[in-house]
């Protein structure tokens, strides 16, 4: 924090006003409306509204479909995070080793980050199309009958791959930066002590990377829970039998397609609570790290 400050009564408010105005109009107002709506029942056109108390919430948590959606979200989030982190770490270690050609590889590996999730979804949907896709064809050559229209596991694999694909680039960059900040002297010293590359990785590299890894885990969680909406929308639409129906897709589907406004609003509020929790965790962590 700054020791000294400008003294001015009006200026700070003017400076912060645009940001606050947008926050209030486009975030607080709608969020407030969602909270109100979660205690109401309303027809699609908004002609009849009645208060129902906590009924929307109790219905939600007694609905096996919602519970399934919670479980699916947990599995999906962990799978995307794990896949994106492991692949990215592997690539980062390789780049770190291939010093000379490292930057060239980096260029070839970072650009998927720039591809819109909606486009990513359409691309993988096309690749995995059961009748015309190339991947099911290749899988059938090794005897696996791919069918994400019926097999929930196949569908989950599809959305995890498609969601992790652009995120690998992101994680990769952070791991490369993290690896570069590890002093070479530490590893050299370990090497002189006779520690092999595997041992060095687990005793030195991994622990020193742990702040980066923790930070990335939170970011990937948020990404997988919320930003993957276009991927699901462009591919499985939550199916088959709800096996890829993550929470954020369900909110959209129940509210915007099914027009079940009360339930959708209650789901929004649940998500709101999750987001706030994740933000606080991330913020606390980031704040602490910055002060080192």
């Amino acid at each position, binding site marked *: 924090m700054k020791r000294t400050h400008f003294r001015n009564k009006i200026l700070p408010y003017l400076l912060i006003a645009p940001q606050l105005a947008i926050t209030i109009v486009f975030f607080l107002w709608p969020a407030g409306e969602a909270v109100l709506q979660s205690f109401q029942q309303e027809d699609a056109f908004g002609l009849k509204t009645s208060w129902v108390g906590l009924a929307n919430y109790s219905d939600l948590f007694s609905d096996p479909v919602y519970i399934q959606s919670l479980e699916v979200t947990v599995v999906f989030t962990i799978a995307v995070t794990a896949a994106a982190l492991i692949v990215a770490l592997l690539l980062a270690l390789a780049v770190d080793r291939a010093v000379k050609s490292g930057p060239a590889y980096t260029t070839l590996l970072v650009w998927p980050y720039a591809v819109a999730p909606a486009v990513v979804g359409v691309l993988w949907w096309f690749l995995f199309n059961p009748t015309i896709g190339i991947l099911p064809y290749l899988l059938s050559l090794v005897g696996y009958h791919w069918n994400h229209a*019926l097999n929930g596991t196949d569908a989950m694999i599809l959305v995890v791959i498609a969601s992790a694909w652009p995120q690998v680039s992101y994680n990769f960059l952070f791991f490369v930066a993290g690896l570069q900040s590890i002093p070479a002297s530490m590893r050299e010293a370990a090497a002189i002590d006779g520690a092999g590359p595997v041992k060095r990785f687990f005793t030195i590299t991994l622990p020193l990377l742990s702040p980066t890894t923790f930070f990335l885990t939170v970011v990937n969680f948020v990404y997988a829970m919320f930003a993957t909406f276009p991927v699901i929308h462009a591919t499985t639409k939550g199916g088959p039998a709800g096996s890829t129906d993550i929470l954020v897709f369900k909110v959209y589907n129940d509210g915007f397609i099914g027009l079940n406004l009360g339930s959708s609003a209650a789901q929004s509020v649940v998500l709101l609570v999750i987001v706030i929790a994740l933000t606080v965790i991330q913020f606390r962590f980031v704040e602490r790290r910055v002060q080192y």
Partner: protein
Amino acid sequence: MIRTTLVSAMALAASMSMAQAKTTITWWHAMGGELGQKLDQIVADYNKSQDQYEVVATYKGSYPETMTAAIAAFRAKKQPDIVQVFEVGTGTMMAAKGAIYPVYKLMKDTGTEFDPKSYLQAVVGYYTDTDGNMLSMPFNSSTPILYYNKDAFKKAGLDPDQPPKTWAEVVDDSKKIMSSGAAKCGFTTGWVSWVQTENFSAWHNQPIGTMENGFGGLDARLVFGKDEALVKHWANLAKWQKDGIFKYGGPVGGNDAPPMFYSGDCAMYMNSSASRAGVLINTKGKFEVGYGMLPYYKDVKGAPQNTIIGGATLWVLGGHDKAEYKGVADFLHYLSSAKVQADWSQFSGYLPITQAAYDLGKSQGFYEKNPGSDVGIKEITLNTPTANSKGLRFGNYVQVRDIIDDEFQKLLSGSETAQQALDNVDSRGNDLIAKFEQANK
């Protein structure tokens, strides 16, 4: 400032093709692809035919997206004059008494020529209230039919002019086709919910729900699980899928089904009569296509009854001024004229909605020249519709359709029996329907 930008943008869009004095009629629709092009042409013809109104048609995405967009716009008081809503949205639209302007009333209020009797009853019955008033204007209605690969039938030693009539024949033919190597699978289908469930019940004259399939009131409930024929059929589909006779094409419309038929993998294919144009384009030069009615089970009394329609109708939304409604009525009148209807239905494969349009097609010799194009209309008019085969009308039915897909997938993956799956459709679906009833009381 923002408002003026909006207004000027709209004015700019409007002024591109019209003189200042015309009244603009907005129409949101869900017709993509070739159908969208044809629709644009119809609108352009109308705009040229008179100089008072300018219809602006906008494609708003899939059926559910179009409907939701219109409802969201209504809540924000930015609704279009006309919106195209698919048949399962009928319950929702109908219950929204303050939001819609019933077509029969619109026609009466504006003094537009309108004879409900000139419409095909099997089509408009779906959209008529219990007092016999037409609430929305049918535009594109279709019904499922059977398409089959004549070359594969020939190769398997079957008569290529004899499509299977019953499910037993479908299975026999499939087995012969598969064992002779003429195709890899017997049949596939689009729209499991619409074709293999709702239409199955109507075709076998079995109730889908209580109170005349929901026509009688908001407190009607689904009874799929009590329909023994349907339970047997779903169980068979699961069994046939294991045997490879049937291949599943995915949820909702079943996007993976058409390529299976086009590529010759599956010899038979059940889908909307409106898919005919697409089927012809995509199989051209590969094999000859035959057409048949939907199969039925011989041992079910009353089968075959008649099929029910799908597709969409045009709803007029409230909250606009009188001058606009006059234009809307005039445009709807134009749309249902025999000439426009015959042209649209012959191009698209949708059913003609008036007797006059059907007769015009007949006198033009269209149905003779285009074999299979009248299978759909024969199916829906096979018998006088009963309480079980008029159609269905439930609230929140868009989501009920999702549940049907959901439970069907659970059945196919072996985690449920047919009875369990259909019972779950009823219980989960009825929860939603009850919610709808509560919200619209």
